[in-house]
């Protein structure tokens, strides 16, 4: 297994850093360019959620990314210690959004672009999103575990 851990400030400009870093790390596996683009979208959504919803756009907190790859399999965890999600089932509904300007598609994209996807969250303590996918294999969208 190969692993990497990244911690960065909860600033929106770090969303691009996160997805590029993940893309670089998982490119050691046999992913196509199209796969990598999908993984970047999923990471972008998860990190944006941590910053905007977890930390309420406060730039003084930390988002943690844990990356693991082994035998054509990659796993990404996006962890914040923010306000957490009260009702995960509701948050996972397509088009659910707390903001009319946002599409509520973040979780839908994460599920579409990953094989396995789970959300652990404790109100007041934070959220941990775990998503994984194999390289070089046909893929079915994830059914979320909560």
């Amino acid at each position: 297994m190969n692993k990497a851990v990244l911690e960065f400030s909860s600033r929106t400009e770090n969303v691009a850093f996160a997805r590029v870093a993940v893309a670089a790390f998982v490119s050691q596996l046999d992913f196509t360019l199209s796969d990598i683009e999908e993984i970047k979208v999923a990471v972008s959504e998860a990190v944006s959620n941590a910053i905007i919803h977890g930390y309420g756009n406060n730039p003084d907190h930390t988002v943690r990314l844990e990356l693991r790859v082994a035998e054509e399999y990659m796993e990404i965890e996006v962890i914040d210690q923010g306000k957490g999600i009260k009702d995960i089932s509701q948050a996972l509904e397509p088009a659910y959004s707390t903001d009319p300007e946002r599409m509520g598609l973040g979780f839908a994209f994460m599920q579409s672009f990953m094989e396995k996807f789970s959300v652990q969250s404790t109100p007041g303590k934070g959220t941990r999103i775990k998503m994984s996918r194999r390289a070089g294999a046909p893929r079915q969208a994830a059914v979320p575990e909560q």
Partner: protein
Amino acid sequence: MNYTIKKEKDYLVVSISGEVDISITDSLREDIDRALQDYGLNNLIFDLSGVEFVDSAGLGVILGRYKKVAARGGKVYLAGARPQVKKILELSGLLGLMDEYPSTGALWEKLG
């Protein structure tokens, strides 16, 4: 990421390049809304030919502007999306709400 906003005929044309995510969507949204108001326009064209990446935050700006101009009888057109961007547009359902063209040239031909 950068963008230009200009009036062409009766349309506000927003040309976007680079990566569109949450770091830029607030200023993009405000600048488009201000230009729509200043020019008094209700029709909007997004030239996406330079967009290399978009996530749901970027799509939210497009949807929000759609809701705004559609409420006043206006239309939103999308042009030039690259394959990976088009895939995101398709998955989001936005293409069911607005017309999409392979290029701004093809769109202007249609608009006449």
